[in-house]
């Protein structure tokens, strides 16, 4: 499926590049191919990925979602709320491929239950000498790299390198002014921690 999607995108680039509609959970499946490419430049997946959204009275939605995900996969799911008042569902799995499909599954479930607008971002983590993340913005339907260093600082040079390396694998946000960070609550943590 990943290959077919990518073939389609390859032939459709001209139509979709300028005016892309809002996010599509199917895009998250591209993460598997992206992870392979990340490994060729030295980044290993850390085995965690997360969805970030904001729903009033989210508890029931999260519980439902968690039970569905846990029923279909063996993967661990945790939920938390951050200091901005956003909810996070964090998934743990061995391979990036599994994480990609769990993210896609959970995002589709939120789309189908009418929470399309509430979805903010999907994030998957990698590590080399430092941690690097790919953030998918549901508002813009594109991925961008995020390499936080310390408190509210980012390694832009590394981010540009990652963008260059994965241009062929992901629909990458080409407007850098939309590469908004997801600062962790404490420096050194993952954005979802």
């Amino acid at each position: 499926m990943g290959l077919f999607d990518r073939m389609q995108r390859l032939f459709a680039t001209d139509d979709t590049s300028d005016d892309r509609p809002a996010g599509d959970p199917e895009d998250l499946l591209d993460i598997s191919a992206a992870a392979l490419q990340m490994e060729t430049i030295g980044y290993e997946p850390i085995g965690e990925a997360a969805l970030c959204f904001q729903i009033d009275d989210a508890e029931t939605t999260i519980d439902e979602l968690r039970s569905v995900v846990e029923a279909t996969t063996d993967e661990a799911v945790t939920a938390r709320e951050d200091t901005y008042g956003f909810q996070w569902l964090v998934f743990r799995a061995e391979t990036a491929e599994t994480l990609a499909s769990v993210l896609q599954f959970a995002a589709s479930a939120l789309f189908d239950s009418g929470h399309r607008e509430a979805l903010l971002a999907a994030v998957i983590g990698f590590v080399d000498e430092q941690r690097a993340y790919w953030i998918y913005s549901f508002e813009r339907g594109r991925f961008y790299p995020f390499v936080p260093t310390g408190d509210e600082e980012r390694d832009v040079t590394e981010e540009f390198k990652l963008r260059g390396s994965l241009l062929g694998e992901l629909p990458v946000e080409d407007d850098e002014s939309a590469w908004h960070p997801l600062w962790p609550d404490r420096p050194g943590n993952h954005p979802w921690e």
Partner: protein
Amino acid sequence: MNWQTDWGLRGRMLVTAGLLAVLYIGFVVVLVEVLNTAPVVALLLVGGLSFVQYFYSDSLALRSMGASRVEEAEYPDLHQRVTRLAQQADLPKPDVAVADSHTPNAFATGRNQENAVVCVTTGLLETLDEEELDGVLAHELAHIKNRDVMVMTIASFLSTVAFMVVRYGAFFGGGRNRNGGIVVAIGASLITWIVSFLLIRALSRYREYAADRGAAQITGNPSALASALLSISGKMDRVPSDDLREQSQMNAFFIIPVSSGVIGKLFRTHPTTENRIERLQELQAELA
């Protein structure tokens, strides 16, 4: 050498600060009016936190950047530059710190002129030539001279209180105030938060221009700072540092996405590199 005061810039700064003061006074009056003594707790709490943050701004900022103070023996050239420029700026010599990061960047912090630190990244030292480095260091010294840490702490204080009331007001006031006072308080806080957010960012942009002007005054070489800005920024300047979540919450109050157009401009903490370079070139022209 004597420089003309930029009355336009000074005027805009005063107007912005004045609007902020009026907004804050109105905000406090409304809070006291509808909640009597309850907001005193929030004011004291945020006041205490702000003071601690302000008092320890140097160590907090350095730690968050992973930077540490360096001795003269480790970075003799950098220390010499700072000593010379501080003399020219008529400032006590600040501490010097270096952060190990490829991203070229610099900042100044500290609660007053006697406890100031200038920090640069290793990326900055690698990227810039000597004159450009002087320009950037002078810009940071100008921030110290203008007491910008204090200015921005004071300007942000009541904005933080307003944000706290918006975020947590319902928890505290819900049961006790049957007359709906808490609703008025949250409404007033919301308006104060949004308006002060924009005013603080405008003020921050004016302080940047003022520091660029100060740097030109110290080095007499505005072009070098302009060229440093060009070397540092390139496309990197476009990568934002405001959080996606903050952005999306602000977006909820505006119809047009804040990252685009006029509204995007209101949200910036720094003026665009093009505008700064343009003004520095004007300064260079005045000098010639």
